Protein backbone atom coordinates (compact mmCIF):
# COMPACT_ATOMS: atom_id res chain seq x y z
CA UNK A 1 0.00 0.00 0.00
CA UNK A 2 2.61 2.52 1.09
CA UNK A 3 4.61 1.55 -1.94
CA UNK A 4 1.92 2.69 -4.37
CA UNK A 5 1.50 6.06 -2.71
CA UNK A 6 5.24 6.58 -2.63
CA UNK A 7 5.61 5.86 -6.28
CA UNK A 8 2.82 8.16 -7.32
CA UNK A 9 4.56 10.96 -5.49
CA UNK A 10 7.82 10.16 -7.17
CA UNK A 11 6.58 9.90 -10.74
CA UNK A 12 7.07 12.90 -12.96
CA UNK A 13 3.71 14.72 -12.96
CA UNK A 14 3.90 15.01 -16.74
CA UNK A 15 3.95 11.24 -17.02
CA UNK A 16 1.37 10.82 -14.29
CA UNK A 17 -0.97 13.12 -16.15
CA UNK A 18 -0.89 11.15 -19.37
CA UNK A 19 -3.98 9.04 -19.82
CA UNK A 20 -3.41 5.42 -20.75
CA UNK A 21 -4.32 4.94 -24.39
CA UNK A 22 -8.01 4.25 -24.98
CA UNK A 23 -6.85 1.53 -27.31
CA UNK A 24 -5.11 -0.20 -24.46
CA UNK A 25 -8.28 -0.45 -22.39
CA UNK A 26 -10.17 -1.91 -25.28
CA UNK A 27 -7.35 -4.31 -25.98
CA UNK A 28 -7.69 -5.86 -22.51
CA UNK A 29 -11.37 -6.45 -23.19
CA UNK A 30 -10.76 -8.12 -26.54
CA UNK A 31 -7.88 -10.23 -25.29
CA UNK A 32 -10.22 -12.25 -23.08
CA UNK A 33 -12.54 -13.31 -25.88
CA UNK A 34 -12.33 -16.17 -28.33
CA UNK A 35 -13.47 -16.32 -31.95
CA UNK A 36 -13.14 -12.60 -32.47
CA UNK A 37 -12.57 -11.16 -35.93
CA UNK A 38 -10.49 -8.09 -35.40
CA UNK A 39 -10.70 -5.00 -37.54
CA UNK A 40 -8.85 -3.23 -34.80
CA UNK A 41 -5.34 -3.92 -35.95
CA UNK A 42 -3.20 -1.00 -37.05
CA UNK A 43 -0.69 -3.05 -38.97
CA UNK A 44 -0.53 -5.06 -42.20
CA UNK A 45 -1.97 -8.57 -42.17
CA UNK A 46 0.84 -9.64 -44.49
CA UNK A 47 3.92 -11.24 -43.05
CA UNK A 48 7.12 -9.46 -44.17
CA UNK A 49 7.94 -10.68 -47.71
CA UNK A 50 10.19 -13.71 -47.64
CA UNK A 51 13.12 -12.16 -49.53
CA UNK A 52 13.40 -9.56 -46.78
CA UNK A 53 13.33 -12.14 -44.02
CA UNK A 54 15.83 -14.25 -45.92
CA UNK A 55 18.20 -11.33 -46.39
CA UNK A 56 18.06 -10.71 -42.67
CA UNK A 57 18.98 -14.32 -41.93
CA UNK A 58 21.89 -14.03 -44.35
CA UNK A 59 23.07 -10.91 -42.56
CA UNK A 60 23.07 -12.88 -39.31
CA UNK A 61 25.02 -15.70 -40.92
CA UNK A 62 27.57 -13.16 -42.08
CA UNK A 63 27.91 -11.90 -38.53
CA UNK A 64 26.03 -8.61 -38.65
CA UNK A 65 25.32 -8.56 -34.95
CA UNK A 66 27.03 -5.37 -33.79
CA UNK A 67 26.21 -1.69 -33.27
CA UNK A 68 26.10 0.38 -36.39
CA UNK A 69 27.05 4.04 -36.57
CA UNK A 70 24.58 6.24 -34.68
CA UNK A 71 23.17 7.39 -37.98
CA UNK A 72 22.61 3.83 -39.17
CA UNK A 73 24.26 1.85 -41.97
CA UNK A 74 25.47 4.25 -44.64
CA UNK A 75 24.32 1.86 -47.36
CA UNK A 76 20.80 2.00 -46.00
CA UNK A 77 20.87 5.79 -45.75
CA UNK A 78 22.06 5.95 -49.35
CA UNK A 79 19.24 3.67 -50.45
CA UNK A 80 16.74 5.82 -48.55
CA UNK A 81 18.11 8.99 -50.15
CA UNK A 82 17.71 7.43 -53.60
CA UNK A 83 14.22 6.28 -52.72
CA UNK A 84 13.08 9.71 -51.53
CA UNK A 85 14.64 11.36 -54.56
CA UNK A 86 12.82 8.98 -56.89
CA UNK A 87 9.48 9.15 -55.10
CA UNK A 88 9.27 12.88 -54.33
CA UNK A 89 12.16 14.52 -56.12
CA UNK A 90 13.79 15.79 -52.93
CA UNK A 91 17.54 15.35 -52.45
CA UNK A 92 18.92 14.51 -49.01
CA UNK A 93 22.60 13.97 -48.28
CA UNK A 94 22.75 10.45 -46.86
CA UNK A 95 25.73 11.35 -44.69
CA UNK A 96 24.23 14.27 -42.79
CA UNK A 97 20.57 14.54 -43.51
CA UNK A 98 19.17 11.08 -42.80
CA UNK A 99 18.96 9.30 -39.46
CA UNK A 100 17.86 5.69 -39.09
CA UNK A 101 15.48 5.39 -36.15
CA UNK A 102 13.70 2.66 -34.24
CA UNK A 103 10.52 3.13 -36.24
CA UNK A 104 8.71 6.38 -36.89
CA UNK A 105 7.83 6.18 -33.21
CA UNK A 106 11.38 7.02 -32.19
CA UNK A 107 11.77 9.55 -34.99
CA UNK A 108 8.69 11.35 -33.75
CA UNK A 109 9.90 11.41 -30.16
CA UNK A 110 13.34 12.67 -31.22
CA UNK A 111 11.91 15.34 -33.48
CA UNK A 112 9.61 16.63 -30.77
CA UNK A 113 12.25 16.59 -28.05
CA UNK A 114 14.77 18.23 -30.33
CA UNK A 115 12.68 21.29 -31.06
CA UNK A 116 10.30 21.77 -28.15
CA UNK A 117 10.86 23.82 -25.02
CA UNK A 118 8.48 23.93 -22.05
CA UNK A 119 5.54 26.12 -22.90
CA UNK A 120 5.79 25.72 -26.66
CA UNK A 121 2.65 24.85 -28.52
CA UNK A 122 2.28 22.19 -31.18
CA UNK A 123 -0.58 21.99 -33.64
CA UNK A 124 -2.00 18.48 -33.94
CA UNK A 125 -5.01 17.53 -36.07
CA UNK A 126 -7.71 15.61 -34.28
CA UNK A 127 -8.56 12.79 -34.69
CA UNK A 128 -5.08 11.54 -35.41
CA UNK A 129 -2.50 9.01 -34.37
CA UNK A 130 -2.42 8.37 -30.63
CA UNK A 131 1.24 9.25 -29.98
CA UNK A 132 1.41 12.86 -31.10
CA UNK A 133 -0.14 14.50 -28.04
CA UNK A 134 1.60 12.34 -25.40
CA UNK A 135 5.10 12.83 -26.87
CA UNK A 136 4.42 16.57 -27.03
CA UNK A 137 3.32 16.65 -23.40
CA UNK A 138 6.30 14.59 -22.29
CA UNK A 139 8.54 17.12 -23.95
CA UNK A 140 6.93 19.73 -21.70
CA UNK A 141 5.02 21.38 -24.51
CA UNK A 142 1.32 21.83 -25.12
CA UNK A 143 -0.72 20.13 -27.85
CA UNK A 144 -3.21 22.41 -29.56
CA UNK A 145 -5.77 20.44 -31.50
CA UNK A 146 -6.97 21.28 -34.97
CA UNK A 147 -10.42 19.81 -34.84
CA UNK A 148 -11.52 18.12 -38.02
CA UNK A 149 -14.85 16.45 -38.60
CA UNK A 150 -16.79 14.40 -41.11
CA UNK A 151 -18.18 17.65 -42.54
CA UNK A 152 -14.74 18.73 -43.75
CA UNK A 153 -13.69 15.20 -44.63
CA UNK A 154 -11.42 15.08 -41.55
CA UNK A 155 -9.00 17.39 -43.33
CA UNK A 156 -7.28 20.36 -41.80
CA UNK A 157 -6.91 23.48 -43.90
CA UNK A 158 -4.77 26.59 -43.96
CA UNK A 159 -7.39 28.73 -42.23
CA UNK A 160 -7.61 26.33 -39.29
CA UNK A 161 -3.86 26.32 -38.91
CA UNK A 162 -3.68 30.11 -39.16
CA UNK A 163 -6.39 30.54 -36.54
CA UNK A 164 -4.71 28.24 -34.03
CA UNK A 165 -1.31 29.89 -34.22
CA UNK A 166 -0.12 31.91 -31.20
CA UNK A 167 3.30 33.42 -30.49
CA UNK A 168 4.10 30.14 -28.70
CA UNK A 169 3.38 27.88 -31.64
CA UNK A 170 6.47 26.00 -32.70
CA UNK A 171 5.41 23.19 -34.97
CA UNK A 172 2.69 21.36 -36.83
CA UNK A 173 2.54 17.57 -36.74
CA UNK A 174 0.66 16.08 -39.66
CA UNK A 175 0.02 12.51 -40.64
CA UNK A 176 -0.91 12.19 -44.30
CA UNK A 177 -2.64 9.84 -45.12
CA UNK A 178 -4.30 9.90 -41.73
CA UNK A 179 -4.67 7.22 -39.09
CA UNK A 180 -7.55 6.70 -38.09
CA UNK A 181 -9.64 8.36 -40.80
CA UNK A 182 -7.88 7.34 -44.03
CA UNK A 183 -8.26 10.95 -45.18
CA UNK A 184 -5.59 12.40 -47.43
CA UNK A 185 -4.56 15.95 -48.18
CA UNK A 186 -3.90 16.81 -51.79
CA UNK A 187 -1.12 19.00 -53.09
CA UNK A 188 -3.24 22.13 -53.31
CA UNK A 189 -4.31 21.96 -49.67
CA UNK A 190 -0.82 21.11 -48.53
CA UNK A 191 0.58 24.08 -50.45
CA UNK A 192 -1.81 26.41 -48.66
CA UNK A 193 -0.98 24.90 -45.29
CA UNK A 194 2.73 25.05 -46.06
CA UNK A 195 2.41 28.74 -46.85
CA UNK A 196 0.98 29.44 -43.40
CA UNK A 197 3.67 27.31 -41.79
CA UNK A 198 6.33 29.31 -43.62
CA UNK A 199 4.76 32.67 -42.94
CA UNK A 200 4.81 31.95 -39.21
CA UNK A 201 8.22 30.33 -39.27
CA UNK A 202 6.96 27.01 -37.90
CA UNK A 203 8.45 23.56 -38.22
CA UNK A 204 6.52 20.93 -40.11
CA UNK A 205 6.79 17.42 -38.67
CA UNK A 206 5.47 15.27 -41.47
CA UNK A 207 4.59 11.67 -40.65
CA UNK A 208 4.36 10.05 -44.06
CA UNK A 209 4.37 6.44 -42.93
CA UNK A 210 1.24 5.74 -45.00
CA UNK A 211 2.42 7.73 -48.02
CA UNK A 212 2.86 4.69 -50.24
CA UNK A 213 -0.61 3.53 -49.26
CA UNK A 214 -2.43 6.24 -51.21
CA UNK A 215 -5.23 4.97 -53.44
CA UNK A 216 -6.87 8.08 -54.81
CA UNK A 217 -4.70 10.73 -56.41
CA UNK A 218 -1.01 10.98 -55.67
CA UNK A 219 0.74 11.32 -52.36
CA UNK A 220 2.46 14.67 -51.94
CA UNK A 221 5.63 14.64 -49.92
CA UNK A 222 5.73 17.78 -47.74
CA UNK A 223 9.46 18.57 -48.21
CA UNK A 224 8.85 18.61 -51.96
CA UNK A 225 6.71 21.74 -51.60
CA UNK A 226 8.46 25.03 -52.41
CA UNK A 227 10.54 26.31 -49.51
CA UNK A 228 9.58 23.43 -47.22
CA UNK A 229 12.53 21.08 -47.39
CA UNK A 230 14.55 22.84 -44.73
CA UNK A 231 11.75 23.43 -42.28
CA UNK A 232 10.30 19.92 -42.51
CA UNK A 233 11.25 16.83 -40.57
CA UNK A 234 10.17 13.97 -42.76
CA UNK A 235 9.34 10.81 -40.81
CA UNK A 236 8.86 7.56 -42.63
CA UNK A 237 9.60 3.90 -42.18
CA UNK A 238 9.12 0.36 -43.26
CA UNK A 239 6.37 -0.76 -40.90
CA UNK A 240 3.33 -0.24 -43.08
CA UNK A 241 4.39 -0.27 -46.73
CA UNK A 242 6.70 -3.26 -46.38
CA UNK A 243 4.76 -5.06 -43.64
CA UNK A 244 7.65 -4.72 -41.19
CA UNK A 245 6.06 -3.44 -37.99
CA UNK A 246 7.88 -5.80 -35.68
CA UNK A 247 11.32 -4.98 -37.05
CA UNK A 248 11.27 -1.49 -35.58
CA UNK A 249 13.04 0.50 -38.22
CA UNK A 250 12.30 3.86 -39.79
CA UNK A 251 14.05 7.11 -40.56
CA UNK A 252 14.01 10.85 -40.23
CA UNK A 253 15.18 13.15 -43.02
CA UNK A 254 15.75 16.87 -42.76
CA UNK A 255 18.21 19.70 -42.80
CA UNK A 256 21.66 18.88 -41.47
CA UNK A 257 21.29 20.94 -38.29
CA UNK A 258 18.03 19.26 -37.37
CA UNK A 259 19.35 15.80 -37.97
CA UNK A 260 22.57 16.52 -36.08
CA UNK A 261 20.55 17.67 -33.07
CA UNK A 262 18.22 14.68 -33.23
CA UNK A 263 21.23 12.41 -33.49
CA UNK A 264 22.55 13.78 -30.19
CA UNK A 265 19.49 12.46 -28.35
CA UNK A 266 19.45 9.27 -30.39
CA UNK A 267 23.09 8.48 -29.68
CA UNK A 268 22.65 8.73 -25.93
CA UNK A 269 19.24 7.09 -25.67
CA UNK A 270 19.15 4.52 -28.46
CA UNK A 271 22.70 4.27 -29.83
CA UNK A 272 21.42 2.87 -33.10
CA UNK A 273 18.55 0.96 -34.66
CA UNK A 274 18.95 -2.85 -34.60
CA UNK A 275 21.42 -3.92 -37.27
CA UNK A 276 19.30 -6.93 -38.32
CA UNK A 277 16.36 -4.64 -38.97
CA UNK A 278 18.59 -2.27 -40.92
CA UNK A 279 19.82 -5.12 -43.11
CA UNK A 280 16.23 -6.15 -43.76
CA UNK A 281 15.21 -2.57 -44.55
CA UNK A 282 18.04 -2.35 -47.08
CA UNK A 283 16.74 -5.46 -48.82
CA UNK A 284 13.22 -4.01 -48.80
CA UNK A 285 14.42 -0.92 -50.65
CA UNK A 286 16.62 -2.84 -53.05
CA UNK A 287 14.17 -5.52 -54.11
CA UNK A 288 10.86 -4.90 -52.41
CA UNK A 289 9.15 -2.40 -54.68
CA UNK A 290 7.05 -4.82 -56.74
CA UNK A 291 6.00 -6.91 -53.74
CA UNK A 292 5.03 -3.73 -51.92
CA UNK A 293 2.92 -2.57 -54.83
CA UNK A 294 1.09 -5.90 -54.86
CA UNK A 295 0.19 -5.44 -51.22
CA UNK A 296 -1.02 -1.92 -51.95
CA UNK A 297 -3.23 -3.29 -54.76
CA UNK A 298 -4.75 -5.73 -52.32
CA UNK A 299 -5.49 -3.05 -49.74
CA UNK A 300 -7.12 -1.01 -52.45
CA UNK A 301 -9.44 -3.88 -53.41
CA UNK A 302 -10.42 -4.45 -49.83
CA UNK A 303 -10.93 -0.72 -49.42
CA UNK A 304 -13.60 -0.74 -52.11
CA UNK A 305 -15.27 -3.73 -50.49
CA UNK A 306 -15.34 -1.83 -47.21
CA UNK A 307 -16.86 1.32 -48.72
CA UNK A 308 -19.63 -0.79 -50.22
CA UNK A 309 -20.22 -2.66 -46.96
CA UNK A 310 -20.75 0.53 -44.96
CA UNK A 311 -22.97 1.90 -47.65
CA UNK A 312 -25.15 -1.21 -47.41
CA UNK A 313 -25.17 -1.01 -43.63
CA UNK A 314 -26.40 2.53 -43.86
CA UNK A 315 -23.46 3.92 -41.92
CA UNK A 316 -22.13 7.10 -43.55
CA UNK A 317 -18.42 6.76 -44.27
CA UNK A 318 -16.25 9.30 -46.06
CA UNK A 319 -14.15 7.71 -48.77
CA UNK A 320 -10.92 6.50 -47.19
CA UNK A 321 -8.19 7.48 -49.63
CA UNK A 322 -5.09 6.23 -47.90
CA UNK A 323 -3.67 4.03 -45.13
CA UNK A 324 -5.85 0.97 -44.39
CA UNK A 325 -8.57 2.42 -42.24
CA UNK A 326 -12.19 3.36 -42.70
CA UNK A 327 -13.85 5.64 -40.19
CA UNK A 328 -17.62 5.20 -40.39
CA UNK A 329 -20.09 7.44 -38.59
CA UNK A 330 -22.03 5.35 -36.08
CA UNK A 331 -24.12 8.15 -34.54
CA UNK A 332 -27.30 6.86 -36.19
CA UNK A 333 -27.18 3.85 -33.86
CA UNK A 334 -27.60 6.15 -30.88
CA UNK A 335 -24.49 4.66 -29.29
CA UNK A 336 -21.26 6.30 -28.24
CA UNK A 337 -18.09 5.04 -29.92
CA UNK A 338 -17.11 3.03 -26.89
CA UNK A 339 -20.55 1.49 -26.40
CA UNK A 340 -20.72 0.63 -30.07
CA UNK A 341 -17.33 -1.05 -30.00
CA UNK A 342 -18.02 -2.84 -26.76
CA UNK A 343 -21.48 -4.11 -27.69
CA UNK A 344 -20.37 -5.10 -31.18
CA UNK A 345 -17.60 -7.10 -29.60
CA UNK A 346 -19.85 -8.78 -27.07
CA UNK A 347 -22.75 -9.50 -29.39
CA UNK A 348 -21.03 -10.22 -32.68
CA UNK A 349 -17.39 -10.79 -31.78
CA UNK A 350 -16.08 -8.16 -34.11
CA UNK A 351 -13.44 -5.79 -32.76
CA UNK A 352 -13.17 -2.21 -33.97
CA UNK A 353 -11.49 0.72 -32.25
CA UNK A 354 -13.68 3.44 -30.69
CA UNK A 355 -13.02 6.69 -32.53
CA UNK A 356 -12.52 8.68 -29.34
CA UNK A 357 -9.28 6.77 -28.75
CA UNK A 358 -7.89 9.19 -31.36
CA UNK A 359 -9.23 12.32 -29.68
CA UNK A 360 -12.58 13.83 -28.82
CA UNK A 361 -13.31 14.55 -32.44
CA UNK A 362 -13.39 10.82 -33.07
CA UNK A 363 -16.48 10.43 -30.86
CA UNK A 364 -19.37 9.07 -32.88
CA UNK A 365 -17.05 7.11 -35.16
CA UNK A 366 -15.16 3.84 -35.06
CA UNK A 367 -11.95 2.85 -36.80
CA UNK A 368 -12.14 -0.29 -38.93
CA UNK A 369 -8.89 -1.55 -40.33
CA UNK A 370 -9.15 -3.36 -43.63
CA UNK A 371 -5.81 -5.00 -43.28
CA UNK A 372 -7.61 -8.32 -42.93
CA UNK A 373 -8.35 -11.15 -45.35
CA UNK A 374 -11.34 -10.89 -47.70
CA UNK A 375 -12.98 -13.76 -45.84
CA UNK A 376 -12.59 -12.08 -42.49
CA UNK A 377 -13.78 -8.76 -43.86
CA UNK A 378 -16.83 -10.33 -45.47
CA UNK A 379 -17.76 -12.21 -42.29
CA UNK A 380 -17.08 -9.20 -40.07
CA UNK A 381 -19.30 -6.94 -42.15
CA UNK A 382 -22.07 -9.53 -42.16
CA UNK A 383 -21.99 -9.56 -38.38
CA UNK A 384 -21.70 -5.81 -38.14
CA UNK A 385 -24.61 -5.41 -40.49
CA UNK A 386 -26.95 -7.43 -38.28
CA UNK A 387 -25.71 -5.53 -35.23
CA UNK A 388 -26.43 -2.18 -36.85
CA UNK A 389 -29.86 -3.33 -38.01
CA UNK A 390 -30.77 -4.49 -34.53
CA UNK A 391 -29.69 -1.16 -33.15
CA UNK A 392 -31.66 0.74 -35.72
CA UNK A 393 -34.80 -1.11 -34.66
CA UNK A 394 -34.05 -0.65 -31.00
CA UNK A 395 -33.56 3.05 -31.65
CA UNK A 396 -37.11 3.28 -32.91
CA UNK A 397 -38.47 1.54 -29.84
CA UNK A 398 -36.45 3.78 -27.60
CA UNK A 399 -38.08 6.91 -28.96
CA UNK A 400 -41.33 5.67 -27.44
CA UNK A 401 -39.85 5.40 -23.96
CA UNK A 402 -38.04 8.66 -23.55
CA UNK A 403 -36.96 7.81 -20.03
CA UNK A 404 -34.45 5.31 -21.36
CA UNK A 405 -33.20 7.06 -24.42
CA UNK A 406 -30.09 9.20 -24.69
CA UNK A 407 -26.80 7.87 -23.52
CA UNK A 408 -25.08 9.95 -20.92
CA UNK A 409 -21.33 10.34 -20.84
CA UNK A 410 -21.35 9.13 -17.19
CA UNK A 411 -22.82 5.79 -18.24
CA UNK A 412 -20.13 5.31 -20.80
CA UNK A 413 -17.34 5.88 -18.33
CA UNK A 414 -18.86 3.46 -15.86
CA UNK A 415 -19.15 0.66 -18.33
CA UNK A 416 -15.51 0.90 -19.34
Amino acid at each position, binding site marked *: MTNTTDWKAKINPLVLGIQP*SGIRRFFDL*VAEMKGVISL*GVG*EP*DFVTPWHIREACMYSLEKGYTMYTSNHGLLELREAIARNIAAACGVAYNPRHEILITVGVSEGLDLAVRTILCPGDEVLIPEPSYVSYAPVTIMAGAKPVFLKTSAENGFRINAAMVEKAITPKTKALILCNPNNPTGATLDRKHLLEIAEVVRAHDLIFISDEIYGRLTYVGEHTCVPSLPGMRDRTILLDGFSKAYAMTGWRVGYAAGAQDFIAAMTKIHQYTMLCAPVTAQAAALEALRNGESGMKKMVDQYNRRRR*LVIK*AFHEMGLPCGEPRGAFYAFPDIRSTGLSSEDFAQQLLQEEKV*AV*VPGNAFGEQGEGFVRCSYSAS*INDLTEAFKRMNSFVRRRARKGQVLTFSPGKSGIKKEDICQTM
Partner: protein
Amino acid sequence: MLLKGGITVSGNRCKRKEILEIIENDARLNAEQIAAMLDMAEDEVVRIIKEMEEEKIIAGYFTVINWDKVGEEKGSAIIEVKITPQRDLGFDAVAMRICRFPEVKTVRLMSGAYDLVVYIEGQTMREVAAFVTQKLAPLEHVLSTATHFVLKTYKLQGTLVEEDGEEDRRLMITP
Protein backbone atom coordinates in the same frame (compact mmCIF):
# COMPACT_ATOMS: atom_id res chain seq x y z
CA MET B 1 -13.64 5.37 -83.63
CA LEU B 2 -10.48 3.38 -83.84
CA LEU B 3 -8.99 5.15 -80.88
CA LYS B 4 -12.14 4.71 -78.89
CA GLY B 5 -12.23 1.03 -79.69
CA GLY B 6 -8.60 0.72 -78.70
CA ILE B 7 -9.24 2.27 -75.33
CA THR B 8 -12.17 -0.02 -74.59
CA VAL B 9 -10.16 -3.09 -75.49
CA SER B 10 -7.26 -2.13 -73.25
CA GLY B 11 -9.68 -1.16 -70.47
CA ASN B 12 -11.26 -4.56 -70.78
CA ARG B 13 -7.86 -6.22 -70.76
CA CYS B 14 -6.99 -4.39 -67.59
CA LYS B 15 -10.22 -5.54 -65.91
CA ARG B 16 -9.60 -9.10 -67.05
CA LYS B 17 -6.15 -9.03 -65.52
CA GLU B 18 -7.46 -7.67 -62.24
CA ILE B 19 -10.20 -10.27 -62.05
CA LEU B 20 -7.68 -13.03 -62.77
CA GLU B 21 -5.33 -11.76 -60.12
CA ILE B 22 -8.14 -11.93 -57.59
CA ILE B 23 -9.51 -15.38 -58.43
CA GLU B 24 -6.10 -16.90 -58.98
CA ASN B 25 -5.73 -16.94 -55.22
CA ASP B 26 -9.31 -17.61 -54.24
CA ALA B 27 -11.70 -19.09 -56.76
CA ARG B 28 -14.52 -19.06 -54.25
CA LEU B 29 -14.99 -15.30 -54.24
CA ASN B 30 -18.31 -14.53 -55.86
CA ALA B 31 -19.05 -11.98 -58.55
CA GLU B 32 -20.57 -9.60 -56.04
CA GLN B 33 -17.40 -9.53 -53.95
CA ILE B 34 -15.17 -9.18 -56.99
CA ALA B 35 -17.34 -6.37 -58.32
CA ALA B 36 -17.03 -4.51 -55.03
CA MET B 37 -13.28 -5.01 -54.92
CA LEU B 38 -12.84 -3.59 -58.41
CA ASP B 39 -15.57 -0.99 -58.29
CA MET B 40 -17.39 -2.64 -61.21
CA ALA B 41 -20.96 -3.72 -61.85
CA GLU B 42 -21.68 -7.29 -60.83
CA ASP B 43 -23.10 -8.31 -64.21
CA GLU B 44 -19.99 -6.95 -65.92
CA VAL B 45 -17.84 -9.22 -63.75
CA VAL B 46 -20.08 -12.18 -64.58
CA ARG B 47 -19.82 -11.38 -68.28
CA ILE B 48 -16.04 -10.99 -68.29
CA ILE B 49 -15.54 -14.23 -66.35
CA LYS B 50 -17.81 -16.06 -68.76
CA GLU B 51 -15.86 -14.67 -71.73
CA MET B 52 -12.61 -15.83 -70.21
CA GLU B 53 -14.04 -19.27 -69.52
CA GLU B 54 -15.15 -19.54 -73.11
CA GLU B 55 -11.75 -18.45 -74.36
CA LYS B 56 -10.13 -21.01 -72.04
CA ILE B 57 -8.19 -18.26 -70.33
CA ILE B 58 -9.86 -19.62 -67.25
CA ALA B 59 -9.39 -23.33 -67.81
CA GLY B 60 -11.00 -24.65 -64.65
CA TYR B 61 -11.44 -24.29 -60.91
CA PHE B 62 -9.66 -26.63 -58.55
CA THR B 63 -9.01 -27.16 -54.89
CA VAL B 64 -5.51 -27.48 -53.55
CA ILE B 65 -5.63 -30.72 -51.58
CA ASN B 66 -2.90 -32.18 -49.47
CA TRP B 67 -3.78 -35.84 -49.99
CA ASP B 68 -0.99 -36.90 -47.64
CA LYS B 69 -3.15 -35.62 -44.81
CA VAL B 70 -6.27 -37.49 -45.83
CA GLY B 71 -4.44 -40.65 -44.87
CA GLU B 72 -5.30 -42.33 -48.12
CA GLU B 73 -2.52 -43.89 -50.07
CA LYS B 74 -1.77 -42.02 -53.26
CA GLY B 75 1.12 -42.40 -55.61
CA SER B 76 2.44 -39.70 -57.85
CA ALA B 77 5.47 -39.29 -60.04
CA ILE B 78 7.18 -36.93 -62.39
CA ILE B 79 8.27 -38.64 -65.59
CA GLU B 80 10.80 -37.29 -68.02
CA VAL B 81 9.85 -38.44 -71.50
CA LYS B 82 11.97 -38.35 -74.63
CA ILE B 83 10.04 -38.54 -77.87
CA THR B 84 10.67 -38.35 -81.60
CA PRO B 85 9.04 -35.30 -83.06
CA GLN B 86 6.81 -35.97 -86.05
CA ARG B 87 6.95 -34.21 -89.35
CA ASP B 88 4.50 -31.26 -89.42
CA LEU B 89 3.14 -32.10 -85.97
CA GLY B 90 6.33 -31.71 -83.94
CA PHE B 91 5.79 -32.85 -80.38
CA ASP B 92 2.14 -31.91 -80.16
CA ALA B 93 0.50 -35.09 -81.42
CA VAL B 94 2.37 -37.37 -79.00
CA ALA B 95 1.88 -34.89 -76.16
CA MET B 96 -1.85 -34.83 -76.81
CA ARG B 97 -2.04 -38.63 -76.79
CA ILE B 98 -0.37 -38.68 -73.41
CA CYS B 99 -2.71 -35.96 -72.15
CA ARG B 100 -5.77 -38.10 -72.82
CA PHE B 101 -4.97 -40.55 -70.02
CA PRO B 102 -6.93 -39.44 -66.94
CA GLU B 103 -4.06 -40.41 -64.63
CA VAL B 104 -1.97 -37.72 -66.30
CA LYS B 105 -2.43 -34.46 -64.46
CA THR B 106 0.10 -32.17 -66.13
CA VAL B 107 2.07 -32.34 -69.37
CA ARG B 108 4.63 -29.77 -70.42
CA LEU B 109 7.12 -29.46 -73.28
CA MET B 110 10.56 -28.72 -71.89
CA SER B 111 13.85 -27.36 -73.14
CA GLY B 112 16.95 -29.40 -72.26
CA ALA B 113 17.79 -33.04 -71.81
CA TYR B 114 14.29 -34.44 -72.34
CA ASP B 115 11.16 -33.34 -74.17
CA LEU B 116 8.07 -33.75 -72.02
CA VAL B 117 7.57 -33.68 -68.33
CA VAL B 118 4.52 -35.66 -67.30
CA TYR B 119 3.04 -35.50 -63.84
CA ILE B 120 0.85 -38.46 -62.98
CA GLU B 121 -1.23 -39.42 -60.00
CA GLY B 122 -2.59 -42.88 -59.20
CA GLN B 123 -4.02 -44.66 -56.20
CA THR B 124 -0.75 -46.38 -55.37
CA MET B 125 2.90 -46.36 -56.39
CA ARG B 126 2.32 -49.71 -58.01
CA GLU B 127 -0.47 -48.28 -60.12
CA VAL B 128 1.76 -45.43 -61.20
CA ALA B 129 4.55 -47.83 -62.10
CA ALA B 130 2.14 -49.97 -64.08
CA PHE B 131 0.95 -46.96 -66.00
CA VAL B 132 4.47 -46.02 -67.02
CA THR B 133 5.50 -49.47 -68.10
CA GLN B 134 2.27 -50.53 -69.74
CA LYS B 135 0.83 -47.34 -71.14
CA LEU B 136 3.37 -44.56 -71.44
CA ALA B 137 6.67 -46.24 -72.36
CA PRO B 138 5.22 -48.43 -75.12
CA LEU B 139 3.54 -45.50 -76.90
CA GLU B 140 4.63 -44.97 -80.46
CA HIS B 141 7.29 -42.22 -80.75
CA VAL B 142 8.18 -42.43 -77.06
CA LEU B 143 11.91 -43.13 -76.94
CA SER B 144 12.52 -43.38 -73.24
CA THR B 145 11.17 -42.48 -69.82
CA ALA B 146 12.72 -41.74 -66.44
CA THR B 147 10.34 -41.93 -63.50
CA HIS B 148 10.80 -39.99 -60.25
CA PHE B 149 8.37 -40.87 -57.50
CA VAL B 150 7.15 -38.06 -55.30
CA LEU B 151 7.99 -38.70 -51.65
CA LYS B 152 6.47 -35.65 -50.03
CA THR B 153 4.80 -32.41 -51.05
CA TYR B 154 5.76 -29.17 -49.36
CA LYS B 155 4.25 -26.54 -51.59
CA LEU B 156 1.53 -26.83 -54.16
CA GLN B 157 0.18 -24.14 -56.48
CA GLY B 158 1.95 -21.44 -54.53
CA THR B 159 0.52 -22.69 -51.25
CA LEU B 160 2.45 -24.23 -48.39
CA VAL B 161 0.66 -27.49 -47.64
CA GLU B 162 2.57 -28.45 -44.54
CA GLU B 163 2.11 -26.55 -41.25
CA ASP B 164 2.95 -23.21 -42.72
CA GLY B 165 3.54 -21.47 -39.42
CA GLU B 166 2.43 -18.14 -40.79
CA GLU B 167 -0.93 -17.77 -39.14
CA ASP B 168 -2.00 -14.34 -37.94
CA ARG B 169 0.18 -13.49 -34.97
CA ARG B 170 -0.82 -9.89 -34.61
CA LEU B 171 -2.28 -8.53 -31.40
CA MET B 172 -6.03 -8.05 -31.66
CA ILE B 173 -5.91 -4.29 -31.24
CA THR B 174 -2.99 -2.01 -32.09
CA PRO B 175 -2.85 1.74 -32.69
